[in-house]
């Protein structure tokens, strides 16, 4: 027993050390910064204060932004689910062999390209005189410009593109885990495709949908690259404001405080969903 204990210790210590150094320490330091009255490496002397947190609650601007970011997260997660789930369903239940592998590769491919390049590529597509605009005008020369760069829809398109693979992959994994004989059994009992989808496939793949929704919602709420590059003046979100505090305004304490408030909001939302998730996951 003692030996087993020691080997478990030896196997887990590197992981915990790494997590401590790479995650816990910086977050702790940031948490400390969020209570400072001035930036830590600045010239002004800093003292401990709650002002940074109070700012969020006293200025409507911040709560408006937080709500806007949460709505953006919900919208992107919902769109990813609407697009990603059917794609995963086709991949897992309709295709096999070469085609499935080829399409899965296409789903994963965006991961291997730089996020910044991906987002800038969208500016080429969405801007006036961009690819979409030119294509439309090639067919309908008299049509008005359809360039939508620097707008809310452009942000949504960019974010959906960035996070869709997470949704497809998590849904694909949970759809793959469904025993095909369950679908056969339902069909043999008289169920048609839409009934099988509603009563067998959707409930059984719900864990994948839920994980996919969390994996898209959480990063989208704090996203700053897509809003900044694709959104222009429309692109002010909680994420871009926090980024500004660190890189432009050099007000680290406020940036840190806003980060922790956002983290708190996201955790609160997940906690509210937890009973529902737990009930669904138990069926496994």
């Amino acid at each position, binding site marked *: 027993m003692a030996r087993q204990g020691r080997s478990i210790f030896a196997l887990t210590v590197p992981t915990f050390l790494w997590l401590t150094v790479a995650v816990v320490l910086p977050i702790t330091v940031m948490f400390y910064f969020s209570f400072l009255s001035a930036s830590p490496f600045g010239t002004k002397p800093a003292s401990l204060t709650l002002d940074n947190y109070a700012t969020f609650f006293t200025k409507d601007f911040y709560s408006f932004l937080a709500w806007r970011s949460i709505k953006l997260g919900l919208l992107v997660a919902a769109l990813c689910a609407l697009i990603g789930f059917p794609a995963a369903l086709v991949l897992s239940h309709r295709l096999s062999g070469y085609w499935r592998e080829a399409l899965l590769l296409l789903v994963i491919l965006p991961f291997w390209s730089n996020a910044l390049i991906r987002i800038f590529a969208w500016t080429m597509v969405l801007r006036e005189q961009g690819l979409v605009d030119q294509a439309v005008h090639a067919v309908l020369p008299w049509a008005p410009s359809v360039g939508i760069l620097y707008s809310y829809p452009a942000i949504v398109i960019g974010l959906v593109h960035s996070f869709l693979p997470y949704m497809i992959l998590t849904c694909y994994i949970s759809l793959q885990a469904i025993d095909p004989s369950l679908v056969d059994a*339902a069909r043999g009992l*008289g*169920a048609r495709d839409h009934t099988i989808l509603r009563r067998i496939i959707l409930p059984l793949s719900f864990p994948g949908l839920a994980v996919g929704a969390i994996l898209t919602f959480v990063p989208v709420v704090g996203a700053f690259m897509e809003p900044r590059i694709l959104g222009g003046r429309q692109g002010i979100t909680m994420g871009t404001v926090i980024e500004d505090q660190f890189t432009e305004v050099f007000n680290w304490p406020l940036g840190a405080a806003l980060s922790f408030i956002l983290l708190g909001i996201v955790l609160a939302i997940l906690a509210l969903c937890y009973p529902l998730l737990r009930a669904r996951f138990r069926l496994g």
Partner: protein
Amino acid sequence: MSTVEIRGVSKRYGSVAALDDVSLEFADGEFFGLLGPSGSGKTTLLRSIAGFVEPDRGSIHVGGEEIARVPIYRRDIGMVFQNYALFPHMSVSDNIAFGLSVRGIGREEIRARVEDALKLVRLEGYGERRPRQLSGGQQQRVALARAVVSRPRVLLLDEPLGALDKNLRQQMQIELKQIQRLVGITTVLVTHDQEEALTLSDRIAVFNQGRVIQAGTPGEIYDSPRSAFVADFMGEANFFIGRVARRQGDEMQIVLDDGAAVMASGPSRLAENAAVRLVVRPEKMSISASEASIPPHHANRLAATVEQVVFMGSSITYRLNCAGAEVSVYQQNQDPPRAAEGGAVWISWRATDTIPVDD
């Protein structure tokens, strides 16, 4: 409840013929076993009846109606899958009710029929449980209840007891047979276990390489196999090779390759001088210590040496060497052992227990 007629059904997967011109008829209320090694086509035929496989050629009639163009959801067929395929996210009751609710049957009637089905499979009070809270045998019964609750025209069983251990399997065989008699649904069983097929079926079709090799009652298939394959597949068989020396009506004298003569009795198409393969079941043979003590009605007798004695509980299996060939003999465990390993003995059997078979 319906007859099933399968006429000239063929199905190819690439260059492999999964079903090769199969024709069978199942009578109304009959329990029909499809038996064969894996890949012999029995499951493909079952899935063709269910609608999961579309045959390339041939027709399948259920109750006189051709079902090739009938979609699965309207075929009205109950099926029990090898792994039961119970819906893990639904209670036992909801599993059983699924087929009724997709047919739009009223809530009250569904509840009554689910109760009846639970009673039928002796699972009253288990309705609220989830499938994974049940034992393998209980899950099997839920699958059966789910398949019969909508009173289908045909019940299809795909290796239904394959996942159970031996004792439970034997118990479930008896129960399955009782339930089938009770509901009277025409039932098709797919199995690779010859004992299961013999126990459960009114009639059996033995499959090999996509074809029906022989069909008949369990007694016919076991006692009168027409081919070496069927004889070998339906339990243990001792084989002898020889030539027909003399024929008189149903009586035949066959000279084995080592010169010994063996008598066979029964209808046969073999002409004199034809090469023949003979089958004798191990339990039809007797062992005698001396030639004088051989039972008088045993026309066939061969000298042999005991190589191994295996005590099986209810019976004893002897492995013998008979002129270079290996022969097995089963003896009921009610007489004292008649031979020890290494001993010289006589094996004997009746002429009617010699079965000539095709290769």
